């Protein structure tokens, strides 16, 4: 199965606060009907050490057609907050996965009381 898969957050929203709704659209255009299209709200870490991930919520788009646009709404959890330090960053994202194949689309956003990433340590960067 070949084609494209995209996610768009409403209003280009990338700075989010706990408890808010995260809404957006998933679009796909494939040459065949996908078996499954799934959307995941999750966080993951990046940095010097082992990686960690946490799934907050996922939803499956039932009976997907080869070409479609679907909307989604997630109630954002209270945490963990997006943060970055010298050794580790925690990043929130929404990811769409279509099967079969390796079709993945991902949009990152920040989650914190201010909507901005919490910076640990030296802020000079």
């Amino acid at each position, binding site marked *: 199965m070949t084609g494209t898969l995209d996610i768009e957050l409403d209003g280009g929203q990338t700075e989010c606060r706990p408890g808010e709704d995260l809404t957006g659209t998933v679009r796909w255009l494939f040459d065949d009907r996908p078996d499954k299209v799934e959307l995941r709200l999750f966080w993951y870490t*990046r*940095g*010097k*050490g*082992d*990686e960690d991930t946490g799934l907050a919520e996922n939803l499956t788009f039932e009976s997907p057609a080869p070409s479609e646009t679907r909307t989604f709404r997630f109630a954002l959890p209270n945490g963990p907050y997006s943060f*970055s*330090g*010298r*050794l*580790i*960053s925690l*990043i929130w994202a929404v990811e769409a996965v279509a099967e079969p194949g390796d079709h993945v689309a991902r949009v990152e956003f920040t989650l914190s009381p201010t909507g901005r990433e919490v*910076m640990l*340590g*030296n*802020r*000079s*960067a």
Partner: protein
Amino acid sequence: MRPARDNPFRVDRITTLCYQPLEATWPQLLDRLEGMHFCGAVVGPCGSGKTTLLDTLADHLARRGLRVARLFCSVDVRPPRSEVTAVLEQTFDVLLLDGADHLGPLAWRRIRRAILRRDRGLVITAHRPGRLPTWVTCRTDAALLCRLVERLLIADGPNAPSCPDRSALEGLYRQYNGNIREALRRLYDIMADGPGAYAAGPRP
């Protein structure tokens, strides 16, 4: 300070690096392994790319339609007997055993016997030769470190931070006795602390 997410030497970047054989091509290595009935050892010192080679080998074997199982051992991680049993009961063609020299003689004999009895393949990594015929000896050189650094920085495109010069990388390579993994971890610190960190000299 450079945030961890923007550090070109962060772990998720490092793990995308494939093993680059210095003295043979991948088709040649695979032919040699097939000639050994998929039983051989990857031998080399710490940080010379043994685990990276095993990861890359897993992809190559899968592309040949071979089913792969994995088992990992280290100084800190010794799989319990139940985990070894569970792996051996899987359906696979080749077992990739990382850190074979951390297994005791009994566990090693048990695994080897179970694999050979069913005519399966067994590829191990070890610091020293001896447990299986050597398939590949992993070696590094400063030029390899330079190529890997270049590749990691190129991935950032025009936003890539400036690369430590070649003589600095060669110094780092020597400082860590050819251990590429430790050299890359040190480069993470250098990038995290900014260019001044390197100007101040490598940390012992």
